[in-house]
């Protein structure tokens, strides 16, 4: 009972914290993109435009809720809710510090991959239920992409799992701090595994250069073409949550989580997560988009073989005592 209460309280706290961080994240992204593009970004809403996310959400919620006549009403309504649930659900097992964790599952890694992988279902649901050709194409692309990129994602995550010998995320973090992650861990094979993880994470959360299901210059808005108002907001939020949780997972699995060179604690995890989150936006506002088939090429011809190689390397490392 105590565990349930702990889970409920911390789950609520973490979920609200994530959503608030996303509000600031949207402001940060707009400012950041503005500076990259030699403009100022939002300036009119509040001090240095800080209230821009509030204005965004108010604007979005005011919009008329349009459902296409021939849409599959139930699926259409369900998809955005599921999208947010799936992405928030993954946050449950992310350890932000030894205490701040909603549920310290023994198989946390499997849980994260499983729930994260479920994201493809609301995405395709939206693509199919909209009864729009652009949405359908977006949904098709989303399935191909998510299913393919699940493989390198799992392989990348298997590297820290193999090295540490545990499936619990806090166990992996503890193993990293015990093994001086700052010195030995990130180099071989941790760093390449992280790059692999990062690319797969971008693809899983539909971020440029892999935002092919959305591809607004090709598919208008892809899966979200027919969505308006609150439902569109949910999709929008779900995407941000997915990216943020992905960054947190990367920070926990590859960069020592709450551990740091001095005074370990929550602040390290937050700093690392936000740094990765910023890198996602740096990439997003610099790169162009791949084509669907090129995406598959990269996944199956490059990332997957490299991932297998890294897992083998990690296994050899463990077997021959490198990690001991």
């Amino acid at each position, binding site marked *: 009972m105590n565990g349930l209460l702990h889970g409920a309280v911390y789950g609520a706290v973490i979920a609200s914290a994530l959503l608030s961080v996303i509000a600031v994240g949207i402001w940060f992204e707009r400012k950041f*993109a503005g500076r*990259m*593009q*030699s*403009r100022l970004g939002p300036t009119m809403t509040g001090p240095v435009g800080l209230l821009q996310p509030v204005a965004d959400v108010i604007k979005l919620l005011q919009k008329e809720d349009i459902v296409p006549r021939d849409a599959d009403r139930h699926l259409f309504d369900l998809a955005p809710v599921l999208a947010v649930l799936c992405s928030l659900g993954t946050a449950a097992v992310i350890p932000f510090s030894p205490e701040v964790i909603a549920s310290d599952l023994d198989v946390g890694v499997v849980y994260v991959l499983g729930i994260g992988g479920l994201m493809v279902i609301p995405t395709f649901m939206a693509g199919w239920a909209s009864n729009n*050709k*652009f949405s359908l*194409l977006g949904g*098709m*692309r989303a399935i191909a992409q998510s299913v393919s990129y699940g493989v390198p994602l799992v392989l990348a995550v298997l590297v820290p799992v193999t090295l540490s010998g545990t499936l619990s995320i806090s166990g992996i973090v503890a193993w990293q701090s015990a093994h001086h992650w700052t010195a030995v861990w990130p180099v071989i094979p941790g760093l390449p595994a992280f790059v692999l993880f990062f690319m797969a994470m971008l693809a899983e959360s539909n971020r*440029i*250069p892999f*935002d*092919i299901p*959305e*591809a*607004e*210059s*090709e*598919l*208008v808005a892809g899966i979200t073409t027919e969505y308006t108002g609150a439902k569109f907001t949910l999709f929008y939020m779900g995407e941000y949550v997915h990216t943020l949780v992905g960054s947190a997972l990367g920070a926990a699995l590859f960069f020592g989580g709450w551990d740091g060179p001095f005074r370990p604690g929550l602040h390290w995890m937050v700093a690392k997560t936000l740094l990765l989150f910023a890198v996602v936006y740096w990439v*997003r*506002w*610099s*790169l*162009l*988009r*791949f*084509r*669907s*088939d*090129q995406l598959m090429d990269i996944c199956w011809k490059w990332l997957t073989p490299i991932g297998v190689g890294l897992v083998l390397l990690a296994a050899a490392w463990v077997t021959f005592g490198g990690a001991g």
Partner: protein
Amino acid sequence: MELASATRGKIDPHLSIYAYEAEADLMLLHFGPQHPSTHGVFRMDLHLDGETVVKATPYIGYLHRAVEKLCEKLTYVQLTPIVDKNDYVAPMSNEQALNMAFEKLLGIEVPRRARWLRTLFAELQRVASHLIWLAAQTIDLGGALGGGSTLFLHCLRERELIMDLFEEVSGARFHYNTHTIGGNRHDLPAGWGERAKAAITQIEERIHEHEAMSLHNRIFIDRMKGVGILDGALALELGITGPVLRGSGVDHDLRRDAPYHAYDELEVNVAVETAGDCLARAKVRFREMRESLRIARCAIEGMPEGPICSYKPIRQPTGVKVTAGQAYAALESPRGELGTFVIGGGDTPTCPYRLKIRSPSLHSLSAIPYIMPGATVSDAVAILGSLDPIMGEVDR
């Protein structure tokens, strides 16, 4: 006869889709007219097998404004600001093409300084126009919420420098109305040449950055290389001109082959690429931007003194009268051969009897049925961007 054979073996673009494959399970996608990447209002009917385009049919006319009819109702002097709006990315070229035809019709000699001014403006306009092409192309490839929009805004920043220069000359940032029959209306203000040269230097430096973000970018190359290959002979047969033709390996440029303005006095190096794909067209445009900046600098340095118009400024709209005759004049606009055919006379001697504008974008679009099949939806966007159509000019 040789040209006719170029289309042999290609998929017939006018083939009925039902005849194409009886059991085909194809999806008809109306691509446009309200689509973020159709460069205005343009529609393609794409027949898709999965994501692969089997047949593409372009539909134009959504921006038709009856400009050619309007040209029969307005006087010769009133027409310059009207054609400004045709190719709304390169208004200078429109004005020049129109007035060149009128001058030919009237048999008027343009003073040497005016010819050099026109050359200078045309070349700067070409750079501005190609910058807009790059901006639109990258936004097609990278999306409005991503890297594409970053390059887009950087291109607009450079174009701003050119628009500032034009504003100093004509008072307008975009629809200049600075050319007239027999020459130009506005001379260069004092110190303009130095400011223009500074701007040219700045743009030259920044084009390196754009090149690094596009032509040297792995994703850009992957998306453009081998996509939308257009055969040179087919391009000639379709009447395609400009960078699209030169990207297909045909060495044709009116600036060198049929010199007008001051091009007989200036050297023009024509950029030609042989691959014929989107990347080749992109390379041609990049080389043209550099070349245009070089020509513009030469034109500033060699600018002769003298009158800028062979007339006194015409104040009356009815100041020009033509009783008979016809003329065709063409120039190399940023998109290709922009021609104006005009018949004078008719009931009102102050208005053209008939005026026909030959717009290069229209001919570029005619390649779509030939080069789209086999491409994916993503490629379709890249191909359309690389043809650089301006719908205001296509539909007129």
